[in-house]
């Protein structure tokens, strides 16, 4: 079927672009002049991880993987809130 071929091509291009975004985020995580820069970079890193999980679930036609995206969103929110609390407390 040409339909599955088109989905494979677009999904592979999407995964490549998301990997490029992870590389850009790691550059910011390495360079970031202050601690909140690195926390924002980690937040975006987890967001790109959720996106990669969703795209992978579409490509491989296994919707069970979407549960991983939900749990990752929960843990990302809690981690960012904890980082903000401790940055506020550090002063």
């Amino acid at each position, binding site marked *: 079927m040409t339909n599955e071929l088109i989905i494979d091509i677009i*999904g592979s291009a999407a995964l490549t*672009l998301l990997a490029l975004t992870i590389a850009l985020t790691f550059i910011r995580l390495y360079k970031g002049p202050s601690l909140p820069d690195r926390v*924002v970079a980690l937040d*975006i890193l987890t*967001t790109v991880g959720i996106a990669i999980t969703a795209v992978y679930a579409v490509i491989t036609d296994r919707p069970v993987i979407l549960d991983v*995206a939900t749990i990752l*969103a929960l843990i990302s929110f809690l981690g*960012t809130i904890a980082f903000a609390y401790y940055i*506020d407390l550090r*002063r």
Partner: protein
Amino acid sequence: MSYFNEFFGIIMMAAGVFFIVIAGVGLLRMPDMFLRMSTATKASTLGLGLILLGTAVYFWELGITSRAIATSVFVLLTAPVSAHMIGRAAYSDGVPLWEKTKQDDLKEYYESHHLVVPDETAVEQTTVSSTNKETDTPTS
């Protein structure tokens, strides 16, 4: 699971990936921590919402679609909250603004409510506490 569901799901996913790449470029290129946080959070929230809605359209079944929409709504609710908390913590931590920043409303708020402006704390606390200690400067 018809042809149109696959088509619109793939289109929404591609748009979401485009916005997430824009968020990554903005995270790398913006000159200031607050501008970086604003760009990255808004664009990545829009992109992730589009990707999850595209997944919900692609698998057009009740259980999977409701889970994907629930995850999307959760991300839309929590991303502004976490961005606000990080920005507030960074401002009170003394992260410098961009040098071309036109106005800083939070600084006027801090000064009018007799709070400590975080940029001058290292300079003013030594001079003020050594000269006149009787003027009550309430700590934040």
